[in-house]
């Protein structure tokens, strides 16, 4: 008979990598992505008997991780200002150039647009689902997606025709 703990272990293995990948795109840093996802898992473990009953426990964890990611981004902005005065930037980890391009383009966007892009393109949420997940009005989700999409396409040198924008 499967115990609550087995249940958590199985869930952990299945969704950890997926969530880290999504948060990696938002944060642009693998270590920080792992940190925020582990934080979400730690919180979930504390109330697993409740969280496992949710329709989508992974969505709950994603929301916690995204919330945590915002905190990390705010802190990073402060640290970056200080680091800029004190020391040269740390060496970037070895990443394929196309991944570096995507991360650099994402980093130029506001965090609110990044999370909408990730939820829409990676988690494959519809605009309504994105709005529900982030607890924002549908119009806000739509405008964030349109702006983020336009800015990302332009940064990546992709064609962004009017028709595409309307379709989003």
């Amino acid at each position: 008979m499967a115990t609550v703990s087995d249940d958590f272990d199985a869930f952990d293995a299945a969704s950890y990598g997926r969530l880290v990948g999504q948060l990696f795109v938002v944060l642009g840093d693998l270590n920080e992505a792992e940190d925020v996802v582990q934080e979400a898992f730690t919180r979930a473990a504390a109330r697993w008997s409740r969280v496992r009953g949710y329709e989508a426990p992974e969505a709950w964890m994603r929301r916690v991780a995204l919330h945590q990611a915002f905190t990390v981004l705010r802190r990073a902005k402060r640290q970056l200002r200080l680091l800029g005065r004190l020391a040269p930037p740390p060496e970037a980890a070895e990443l394929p150039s196309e991944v570096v391009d995507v991360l650099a383009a994402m980093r130029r966007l506001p965090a609110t647009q990044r999370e909408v892009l990730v939820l829409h393109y990676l988690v494959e949420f519809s605009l309504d689902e994105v709005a529900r997940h982030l607890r924002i009005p549908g119009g806000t989700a739509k405008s964030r997606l349109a702006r983020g999409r336009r800015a990302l396409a332009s940064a990546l040198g992709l064609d962004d025709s009017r028709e595409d924008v309307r379709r989003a």
Partner: protein
Amino acid sequence: MLDDRLRQQLARAADHGAEAARPPEPAAIRRRSRTRRWRRAAVAVTAAGALTGGLVVAGTDRPPEPAAPAARPIGTAPASFLAQVNGRVAVVATASGKVIRYLSKAPKGDGQFFFALSEDRDTVWFSDVAVCGHSGIYRVPYQGGGPFGSTPPPTPKP
């Protein structure tokens, strides 16, 4: 078309992150969660104790004899104690329960104070810990009369 290309590029970056991720042992996550729960409970108990009772730290209002440590007959209450009154650090008379003097100005936030009296009983250190907003460590003379306000927190040891 553009959507597909964006989706592809984002997915490639996400896949790279997912492959490079090193999942921790679930047991380690559960252990961390348990530790945190215990720590939180300990902090709550400590804060509740400090809130309800204040911290009895002062034996008398007079400066003690240098050679005589704080030995008191059993059963004798201290003349005064430190407490948080109206959001300020105050010395309160044990007998009457009245504030003898305030040691701090009104706080800027809604923080909870934690007090400590220096060994020579000259200085009260207190931390004002707010959930969000300002917080810090402050120092005021126990006898009062000194300038109110904060001093920079001591440099933490590595």
